[in-house]
């Protein structure tokens, strides 16, 4: 099925470019760590910071292509390893969001009645919570600032829009002949949802899931910016932005590099989402 999708999509220029960009970002984060010569955590204070406290810029010290970060570590290594962390967080968070969204959406749409109204109430409730405040407070309660916590937190707070879309789609599919037929044949709700409804709602889920990937990268960056991201010294693009914030006037490239990579990754995933929307002919609203 994926192969079919790929073949169908390959004709679209938008898809090709999105794929190329995604590959760029992905390879940067996956292969990059093998290319980077230095440990992203090791501090090369003696080499990269002079007596007066000036940081080495890009291409000033051989072997350190992008110069030093605020603590005298290799900026390039941190960028590639940070990419890995950011992408993992994004992927885990979106997987959680997509699975939850699919489950809730299908359950609500197919079972309707009290289940539906309860689940939709839950959706409204989660939507009305002030995201960042709740994230900060939850983070305090869990009190374990690592990759997994951040990912789970993001996933748990961002499945709602997908659930709504899936529910609407399920409501449409439910009225179709083959679902009614399956029900008449005596198949249970789980079977029908798994075999007949899931294939029909997977297209919008795929499209929204791809866009969510981009959003999760942005959210991770925002959380890190507020100091709620991964545990230092683990690098992520968001935490690098945070550490560089103070150096804005003096070393703008330290803000720019991770900022640009975040932008590029989000751009790639959004474009990919749009391309898939074209290919799969999913209506946006």
């Amino acid at each position, binding site marked *: 099925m994926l192969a079919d999708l790929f073949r169908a999509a390959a004709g679209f220029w938008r898809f090709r470019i999105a794929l190329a960009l995604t590959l760029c970002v992905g390879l940067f984060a996956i292969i990059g760590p093998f290319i980077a010569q230095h440990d992203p955590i090791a501090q090369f204070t003696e080499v990269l910071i002079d007596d007066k406290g000036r940081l080495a810029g890009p291409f000033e010290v051989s072997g350190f292509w992008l110069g030093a970060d605020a603590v005298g570590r290799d900026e390039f290594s941190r960028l590639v390893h940070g990419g890995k962390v950011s992408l993992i967080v994004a992927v885990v968070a979106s997987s959680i969001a997509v699975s939850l969204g699919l489950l809730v959406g299908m359950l609500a749409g197919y079972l309707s009645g009290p289940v539906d109204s309860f689940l939709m109430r839950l959706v409204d409730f989660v939507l009305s919570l002030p995201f960042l*405040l709740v994230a900060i*407070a939850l983070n305090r309660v869990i009190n374990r600032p690592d990759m997994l916590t951040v990912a789970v937190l993001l996933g748990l707070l961002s499945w709602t829009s997908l659930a709504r879309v899936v529910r609407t789609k399920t409501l449409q599919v439910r009225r179709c002949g083959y679902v009614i037929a399956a029900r008449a044949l005596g198949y249970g709700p789980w079977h029908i949802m798994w075999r007949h409804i899931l294939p029909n709602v997977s297209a919008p889920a795929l499209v929204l899931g791809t866009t969510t990937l981009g959003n999760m990268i942005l959210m991770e960056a925002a959380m890190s*910016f507020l100091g709620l991201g991964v545990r230092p010294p683990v690098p992520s693009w968001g935490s690098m*932005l945070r550490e560089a914030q103070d150096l*804005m*006037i003096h070393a703008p490239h330290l803000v720019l590099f991770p*900022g640009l990579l975040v932008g590029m990754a989000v751009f790639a995933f959004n474009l990919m989402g749009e391309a898939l929307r074209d290919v799969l002919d999913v209506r*946006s609203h």
Partner: protein
Amino acid sequence: MVEHLIRRTAYALFIVWASVSCVFFLMYAVGDPASATLGERASAEQLASFRAQHGLDRPVLSQYLTYIGVQPCHVRAGYCGLLQGHLGDSLRLDATIASVFVERIPRTALLGAMATTVEVFVGVGLGLWAGATRRRWVDSSLLTFAYLGISIPTFVAGLIALDQLAFRLGLFPVGGYGETPLEHIKHALLPSLVLGLLGSATYLRLVRSETRDLLADEFSRMLRSLGVSQRRLTLRYLPRLAVLPVITLLGLQLPALVGGAVITETIFGWPGLGRLAVEAVYNLDAPLVLAIVLVASVAVQAGNLLADIALQLLDPRVLRS
């Protein structure tokens, strides 16, 4: 219609209650406000008297009931009696929450309103243009802009704009709030431009696709058959139909706006609710956090309700479905 409204309002109140309660227990789980408020030099005796004064030494359920206002409150300070209309006192700032809100809410609202104005006008205008134009490069550039807007984190754009436009070029004041109403607007200009331009991308994409659909629709064909030019069609007739989804989106975007205020206000040093909210959560100023959550969720629900009503009034199709 009236019955529908009543049902919607009741539902909105339920959601507000649920979020406030949820945050109440969350804040309780986070930790004890006493040591956070009194600082590192507080003695055990001071901590105990603070807890007693604010009713923090009672079981959580009883604290919750007094907060909601079901149980009578027997402490003077602190927080109790939400149903009776008391927001309580901030633990950290020497002020009532009501007086803090009177000052802060207009500030956040001003920034939000200006940002939304930019967002909607730029988004709808460019969206119509991109949807109706036949020049592919115009469409391409506008879409590019939209994609960039969605992809760039607000705080990166905000920091760069502050450094380049405000500090180096001196086109805008460097953050802050100003003294007179006119100055407030002047100081809000840069943040609302950054927020608005980045945020307009969502509207642009929506209006663009809506416009395209409408142009390909029987409706436009009918108008064209009446002899309406493309220009007149897009400038005069399409906007009225294309804004309908914008109104829904406006309602849906309110939470994002409230949440976004946290980061924007931190970057631009805007003395509104968002910055205060973060400070309050960090310092475990529970009454203040709860009051902010209350205001935020009321705003969000009210936004949704208003969008709902507006749609009912503007689009007869909604009523029928």
